[in-house]
């Protein structure tokens, strides 16, 4: 699924039609043989707006309204509650570990795939995509099977007093798994299209490998890298299914923001659940804006 999926995800923010560019004559202008009558156009636009509005905009607005239903003071209390704050902290901590891991991996993998031809190269590309094709529940489950109490390494871990599942390491691992492909997928096509002439020139002029990477390669891939980091971070903070399996749902201890939303909802604390959910909405919208801004930079290059 992955090729097309990632392409779709990437293109969604990056390409799109140039905003404000004239497309077709304005409504009311004379009709060419390849245009539709105005009523058809209005209907199509109406259906498009109706469908997207009803399915996306209305639920999003509902979160904000429900969050503020009991007033700003209640909203503030729900967010400043210790369990909510600890969920915020855990979410940022898990992302702060998982994202850099995947950034280093993504750069290394893209470097290997874009610059070298080796046996198994296409298999490697497919394997990088694998986490996108697997259900998040299964992604979490494999770590449970590996590190859980009945898992393959479970007895050994227990003997050594190491807790992976239902603790921070498990949450970080599950997050890393689901966000694994994002950076690499952004960089591979970018680095392939850029070629290696500038790097070769730098090496010929006497730069070391590290100097070449920092001064030549990194500036070239900078915006693609940022784009991948935004995608990766947004997914890391919002991941629910995979983290849900390995977290154990201990309120205030191993609950990330999305899990905290679920806990509150199950405890019938609806207003608080929506308040915390609204934080995630803000993060998601911020990631969308960041993607659009970065996408424009990538196009310029």
């Amino acid at each position: 699924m992955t090729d097309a999926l990632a392409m779709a995800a990437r293109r969604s923010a990056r390409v799109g039609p140039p905003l404000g560019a004239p497309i077709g004559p304005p409504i009311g202008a004379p009709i060419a043989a390849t245009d539709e009558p105005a009523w058809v156009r209005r209907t199509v636009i109406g259906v498009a707006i109706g469908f997207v509005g009803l399915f996306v905009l209305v639920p999003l607005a509902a979160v904000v309204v429900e969050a503020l239903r009991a007033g700003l003071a209640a909203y503030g209390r729900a967010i400043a509650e210790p369990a909510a704050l600890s969920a915020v902290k855990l979410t940022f901590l898990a992302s702060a570990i998982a994202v850099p891991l995947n950034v280093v991996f993504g750069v290394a993998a893209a470097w290997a795939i874009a610059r070298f031809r080796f046996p198994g190269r296409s298999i490697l590309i497919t394997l990088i995509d694998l986490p996108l094709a697997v259900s998040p529940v299964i992604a979490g489950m494999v770590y449970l099977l590996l590190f859980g109490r009945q898992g393959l390494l479970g007895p050994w871990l227990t003997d050594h007093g190491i807790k992976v599942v239902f603790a921070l390491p498990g949450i970080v691992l599950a997050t890393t798994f689901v966000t694994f492909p994002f950076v690499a997928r952004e960089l591979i096509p970018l680095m392939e299209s850029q070629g290696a002439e500038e790097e070769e020139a730098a090496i010929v002029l006497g730069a070391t490998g590290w100097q070449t990477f920092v001064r030549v390669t990194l500036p070239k891939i900078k915006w693609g890298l940022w784009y991948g980091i935004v995608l990766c971070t947004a997914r890391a903070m919002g991941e629910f299914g995979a983290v849900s399996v390995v977290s154990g749902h201990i309120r205030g201890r191993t609950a990330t923001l999305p899990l905290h939303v679920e806990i509150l909802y199950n405890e019938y604390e609806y207003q608080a659940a929506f308040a915390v959910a609204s934080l995630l909405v803000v993060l998601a919208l911020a990631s969308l804006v960041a993607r659009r801004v970065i996408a424009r930079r990538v196009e310029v290059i």
Partner: protein
Amino acid sequence: MGYTIVYLSLIVLIPLATLVIKTAELSPGELWTLATSPRAMASYQVTFGASLAAALVNTALGPIVAWALVRYQFPGRALLDAIVDIPFALPTAVSGLALTAVLAPTGWIGRWLTPLGIKAVFTPLGITLALIFIGLPFVVRTVQPVLEELEPEVEEAAAVLGATRWQILGRVVLPALTPALLTGFALAFARAIGEYGSVVFISGNKQFETEITPLLIMTRLEQFDYAGATALALVMLVVSFAMLLAINGLGAWARRRAGHA
């Protein structure tokens, strides 16, 4: 290079291999019994039925959204283009919560459905609606670029040759879009099958009725029934891989067709 492979193995390959090792501990007979228990079969029916329905709705309405975005100029077009991405960006738990709030009998949309005798929350209909939300961007974003690159000259030629607008749509535009439509459908379907977060809130999780397979896996895990969970996960993995192959095949087919055109 070596680092890439080590890291890939640690994070992805070894954990996935664990699943296969766990499966190997079961005899084929046991595996079959666990994977085809009545509760499992009911969950497949809910999962695949709702996913199929949702993917079909998106395949019907997605091209209309893409067409409006590419061909027409109207106030709010840029905004609509941006909104289409929201289901990608929103954490699934938030999507589930939001849809449940809207569709509940007292919600903004639910209160209009209740007098009609339609119940969306805690029913397969609700699951389908959640999966439509999740899959919405896939068809739009696969059809949109193809529509953008469609040359107006071809349509003009058809018009000059006397074709009506409907004939042009059916015989010129639609065939060009078919690979993209199929790919979008497959992507939306594949995503829907594995979806968990947005469905659990709205489904009510009633056994045999609204229990999706990922949720059943979760339940088995919570009961420490790792064998049962493994068998179900294996079924889902096989389906995911079949979808992966189908989608890659569709992509190759689309590229070949583009080459001939």
